[in-house]
């Protein structure tokens, strides 16, 4: 049985609200969803909540899932990302600071991230304001256009661009600050062994 067939069968069982199938489907996609959730959340517990809410929504609205419009993984990740927006919008926590005309060039800020591992980048992302972090994730990682991001977050595309620029600047300054403080290795990157 191929993976695709298995998932199709699981979805059919999930539509009958069978817990065994729901559990198996959750175990199949939980890791993937968590890796996305940690990028959009402030802390690990919030990420777990986000994953749980995502699967709850998915299982409750599984009838709406249309296989022809995309894979299950893509659908789940879209649900998760939308969930994270809902939280931010509800709590009015996105700190947009208006339209800023700025360069859309990412290389300036992001080149400093080249030598970092994914875990370290996530640690830095968590230090960003939520709005900046969300837009950074949507643009850089998920690959959405500013127009799409604007529609998702109810902001203008230029606001999305300015937030991205701000995120980029903040990331760069964080890296520079850490380098200047000479504690960069110990605070952000993996600790290096001291020679005796």
């Amino acid at each position, binding site marked *: 049985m191929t993976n695709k067939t298995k998932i199709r069968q699981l979805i059919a069982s999930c539509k009958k*609200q069978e*817990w065994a199938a*729901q*559990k198996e489907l*959750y*175990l199949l996609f*939980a*890791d993937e969803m*968590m*890796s996305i959730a*940690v*990028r959009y959340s402030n802390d*690990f*517990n919030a*990420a*777990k*909540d986000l*994953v*749980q*809410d995502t*699967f*709850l*929504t998915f*299982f*409750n609205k599984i009838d709406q899932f249309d296989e022809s419009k995309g894979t299950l993984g893509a659908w789940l990740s879209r649900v998760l990302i939308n969930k994270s927006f*809902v939280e931010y*919008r*509800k*709590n*009015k926590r996105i700190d947009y600071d208006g339209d800023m005309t700025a360069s859309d060039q*990412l*290389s300036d800020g*992001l*080149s400093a*991230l*080249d030598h970092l*591992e*994914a*875990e370290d*980048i*996530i640690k830095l992302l968590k230090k960003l304001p939520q709005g900046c972090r969300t837009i950074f994730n949507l643009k*850089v*990682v998920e*690959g959405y256009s500013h*127009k799409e991001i*604007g*529609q998702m977050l*109810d902001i*203008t*595309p230029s606001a999305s661009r300015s937030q991205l620029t701000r995120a980029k600047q903040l990331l760069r300054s964080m890296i520079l600050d850490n380098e200047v403080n000479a504690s960069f290795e110990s605070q952000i990157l993996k600790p290096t062994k001291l020679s005796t």
Partner: protein
Amino acid sequence: MKSEKDIRDKLKNYSVDWDKEELLDSLESALGHPKKDYRWMWLILLALSLIMGLLIWNASQFSEDEYKWNQETEEVEHPTQNTNKSLANPIHLEKDTLIGVDAQNITKTQDQTPSTQYTSEAEIRTDNLDPKQNSRSRDITSFTRVNKPIPESHPSNHKTIAVANDTKQINIFIDKSSHTLNTKENKSHESKTHKVNQKTAVGLQDVTSIFNDISSEIAYLPTSELNLLTIDTDRKHLETMGSSMKTMEESQMDKQEDKALSPWYLSLRSELGFVQRQRTFLTDNPVYEDRLIQNESTERALYAAHTDLCLAYQHSSGWSLESGLAYQEIKELFNYEETWKDTAKSEGNINYIIVDQTDTTFVMDSTMVIDTYQRKVRHNNKHKLYSIPFRLGYEFSFLRAKCRTSIGANYTFAHNFEGKTNHIIEGGSNEVLIYGAENNFSLKDRIGLQASLALSYPLLNKHQWFAEASYRRSAGMAQALLNQRYHSFSAGVGVRIALGQTL
């Protein structure tokens, strides 16, 4: 955009090391597949097994003792006569009740002195038991050892009456062989057997007429001595001289307890019941108060489970003191549901082109879209309270059982909350998941109250099991804006085990 691609690849391929199974429980309950919690069932099963084990162990010990005793005795056949008697006003007479009247007209049960011969008879009554037979099969031959020579050191100027009540008949014996109070006539045994039709039941009239019958037949015995025996119909016990006659089992038990058991007990109880939450708001701000009131329906108390292990001191006057370690778990259902509408401006396609002479203006088709969001969260919340109980109790007899009422206080030294709660914050409310007590509930006043009523039956000498109903008021738990406590009404079972023996 090499950097962007690199970062994308790194983050897309990043996997989190976490225990994904830890969300399964809450997901299962949130989806309406509540996971059955068998832990309390196992605890109750364990407690019942413990009680059963103690019962069986004690019963086997008792049988061994009887068997050993039986090896050292002899049996003498004794003729009996039967007289039919009918029942009137039946009252419950305890099986195998023994009644003795000594020379001073003091009626005693077998464990009481100075009726030495009666004590001897009681021993005979016991030592003829066949350990392989049920006690209901004890028959008249059990009493025949009354012929056994009385040791010189024991006074013999008394008479003895024994009432043996087996499944079908009541046997009353009068031993005159050593009766020297009013007559020198040397008769051997005389006995009277009155058959009754209902097992272990005899009426007041029957007993009276039986005694009268005996009095008339054995003329030399003063009637007044026999009249010492009366029946107290209210207490349903044979009584004499104002003191309750005890059954053989009770007397044996009392004897052993009085002489051997320590007043110190170890008690273990488990209870389960329903619970009610009481909340007071700690804010004067009407906005917060309104939100708190609206929020009340999100949490519903389900049940409370309680277990404790205590050390008790039981005074002979009936008063007792108890203290130990208690654990209480209160379960609530967090059922959070909200619907809200969000207005979003969508940027559509360019629909209109307005041409004003040389100027061309493009107008975006922007429409307002109202999205409706709905979310439901279900979660089982758990309060765990660890406390030290202090109980003052009083034990009294009620029919064949013992009642113990107790009141006391609990000092709660630790509290743990695990679950979801709806936080009231300035901008609205927000459902959050909380593990542990940090930043959430804190113990405001640590003293809880409790009152209970226990009904116990002394099935065993050393172990006593009981059923108990209790009311408990928990310690106060405070959040930022509210203070709450729980009132639980529970019922359960427990066992008291005597610790050691007195010298």
